[in-house]
């Protein structure tokens, strides 16, 4: 570990075709736009992307989807991206939906090194096939499997050289969960700061979960857009 700083093109080049990639962010806040843009430039294909939403059209992961780099999207809600809804409806993109908190918990469960959890969310709805239910302690419950990934792309407000991360306001969302659940964690940050400027009590993601840090020299317009 130690100095994990690396050039953006070098670290994105470690992602192969067919990789599963968790992407932080809920709408715009916390979305690692610079890492995504480099992935779009390098053009890896057959990707499985895991993100709360599909961003809006023409930005974020929507760029990867529109460019045909994504085979499957695992998500919660894509209602603010008509282009991706259209690609899904035309069966050009495989989309797997989960209730938002279940998606978060599947990722958290992987991050905790577990293999699944028991829930009753949605058991009275069409998202549950009654044949999957198990009886546990007199309740009808569903096993949701843990969701791991090969890579996570994370946007942090601050990072030190070790990869201790702090997120800004609502940009936290899925980022700390994905940083725990993925095997290789790549962080972009506009602020590479000294460790001594971070309070050890207020680290959101401890350095142990971070593999690579990219200093984003300037933030593109995407970071300034309205969210979702």
């Amino acid at each position, binding site marked *: 570990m130690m100095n994990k700083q690396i050039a953006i093109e070098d670290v994105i080049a470690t992602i192969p075709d067919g990789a599963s990639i968790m992407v932080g962010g*809920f*709408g*715009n*806040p*916390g979305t690692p736009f610079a890492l995504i843009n480099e992935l779009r430039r390098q053009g890896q294909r057959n990707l499985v992307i895991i993100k*709360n939403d599909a961003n809006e059209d023409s930005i974020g992961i929507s760029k990867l989807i529109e460019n045909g780099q994504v085979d499957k999207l695992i*998500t*919660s*809600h*894509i*209602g*603010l991206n008509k282009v991706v*809804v259209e690609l899904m409806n035309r069966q050009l993109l495989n*989309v797997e*939906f*989960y*209730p*938002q*908190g*279940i998606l*978060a*918990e599947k*990722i*958290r469960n992987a991050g905790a090194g577990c293999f699944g959890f028991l829930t*009753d*969310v*949605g058991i*009275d*709805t*069409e*998202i549950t096939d009654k044949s999957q239910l198990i009886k546990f302690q007199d309740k009808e419950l569903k096993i949701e499997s843990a969701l791991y990934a090969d890579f996570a792309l994370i946007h942090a*407000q601050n990072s030190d050289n070790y990869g201790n991360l702090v*997120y*800004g*306001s*609502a*940009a*936290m*969302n*899925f*980022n*700390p*969960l994905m940083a725990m659940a993925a095997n290789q964690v790549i962080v972009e940050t506009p602020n590479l700061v000294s460790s001594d400027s971070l309070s050890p009590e207020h680290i*959101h993601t401890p350095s142990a979960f971070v593999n690579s840090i990219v200093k984003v020299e300037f933030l593109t317009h995407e*970071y*300034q*857009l*309205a*969210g*979702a």
Partner: protein
Amino acid sequence: MNVNKIINRAIQELKYGQIVNLGIGLPTKILDHISPDLDIFFQSENGLLGAKKISEDSPINPELIDAGGTYIDIRSGASFFDSSVSFAMIRRGKVDITFMGAFEVDQEGSLANWKIPGYFSPGIGGAMELAQKTPKVIILCSHNDKKGNSKILKKCKLPLTAKKCITRIITDKAVLDVTNEGLVLKEIAEDLTVEELIAQTDAQLIIPQNIGTF
């Protein structure tokens, strides 16, 4: 539809100290109309407690949005947390009230608001957990659709968000409570008779002696 009528009636549900989640659409309009003095914590499922309408002269923080993607501000005593904690809060019933829109509701208290097969399927979002796990689920919707069909049904036909989850329904024409006995008319719009309301409602209504107006 008289949106303001629904919103003004919805605001009467709010009490000092509550934690409240506002769904996208009609419910988020509550933030625009509420008195800033009311000591309420609005939870937004993207990971914050204490959302506040942004004032027009405030600078925008691009990292501070609500779950619908609108720029917001935060009040004193607010907190940020990750998405797993946000839904832990919801599944543990710590959000006191959730206001949601609806495509259909029914007299058993079931709700359909996330999918219209063939037309609209953007995903589930936070709706299922909010509907199933919040102690008080209040639906805000127009009483009838654009063609005049009742949204208040005997039985939902669309895919459910959650079964038997609704506490109260506030429309432009009535306030209805879901009870073990069925759907009880609590209040009626002041320009409507009970007979007119029944004619415009598919669900069976229980009509008590005393009915308020709003």
